[in-house]
């Protein structure tokens, strides 16, 4: 019985690492994902807030879709044990406290997904003012997570 449990646990551990890969891969994947998010948020900010005269509905919809897709892609799988240290594209900025703040992180994850889905909906409407407002909410969610679990430079 004990052995079976150990095997099951070991298998579980193997499959999760197999899915997300070694520590460096996880860090690299999540850094890539967040950089990609940054590209899309910058685009929406530019077109819906800073320079509304450049608003391009298709590009903004594409960006909102991309953000929602990334938000829903299960990024939390890339936060395996030991990924608070190590180097992906560059040294990781994940705080060690990440692992003790699971409750808060879960809440942020849920908010992030909710607001990103909403942004996707609002973007489809093409209403620039509404997009700007909803985009602000998404941005605040990004920030809340960075404040909580990302190391300050």
């Amino acid at each position, binding site marked *: 019985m004990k052995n079976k449990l150990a095997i099951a646990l070991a298998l579980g551990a193997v499959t999760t690492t197999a899915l997300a890969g070694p520590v460096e891969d996880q860090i690299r994947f999540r850094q890539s994902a*967040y950089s990609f998010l940054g590209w899309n948020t910058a685009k929406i*900010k530019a077109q819906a807030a800073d320079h509304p005269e450049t608003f391009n509905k298709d590009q903004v919809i594409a960006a909102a879709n991309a953000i929602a897709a990334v938000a829903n892609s299960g990024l939390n799988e890339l936060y395996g044990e030991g990924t608070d240290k190590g180097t992906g594209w560059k040294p990781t900025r994940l705080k060690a406290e990440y692992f003790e703040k699971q409750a808060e992180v879960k809440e942020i994850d849920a908010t992030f997904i909710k607001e990103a889905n909403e942004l996707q909906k609002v973007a489809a409407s093409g209403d620039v003012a509404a997009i*700007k407002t909803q985009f602000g*909410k998404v*941005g605040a969610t*990004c*920030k809340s997570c960075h404040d909580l679990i990302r190391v300050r*430079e």
Partner: protein
Amino acid sequence: MKIEVHVWDWPLRLFHWLLVLAVVGAYATGKVGGEWTDWHGRFGSLVLGLVIFRLIWGFIGSTHARFINFFPTFSRLLAHLKGDWHGVGHNPVGALAVFALLATLLFLVGTGLFANDDIAFEGPLYYLIDKDFSDKLSGLHIRSVNVLLVLVAVHVAAISFYQHVKKTDLIKPMLTGKKQLPKSLAPSSAQPVGVLRFVFSLLLAVTVVWSVWGGDPLKYLTPLAGVQTAQANGKS
């Protein structure tokens, strides 16, 4: 016998209370982020303009606004600690706090101008430097916010200490400009504000803020100065 002495000139008082507004605004909007980041840039720019103005005013403002008249030199500090200081402007220890506050604010706006939040907000000069350096400055920006918080707490605590323990009202003079002083101690009132000096300081402060945001004040000013050709050749 107490007489009324004019101590703080009106630009300095205006500076102070606008600064309080701008700093509180920048702090709140910086913390909230999201849709408020643009306002953070605006409040921050107001801080920038005010600090530039104050730096100029420290040289050409009226008596007690001038840095040279309250610079905390060692001998002044020593005199103050011994209770031998009898000025009417900032006392030497208060002056330390004034310079610390101004320096921290200057550092905050200096780093803020180049900072980025990795989401959707950059200082207006972000594009002049590379991303890694901007990330460093963003980190320093956020850290120096804590220094500011400490200084403001000390500042406000000191003022309320004077208010309640030493029974000296410093706040009213910061509002009205006037202090009631014993006749024996009272020097003559501060010299009146030079209107031209004020306009000059204000224009310079506005020009700095405007330039930082990519406005091109020279374009508007050069025709007045008759140097359009030099400017036209200098810039494409």
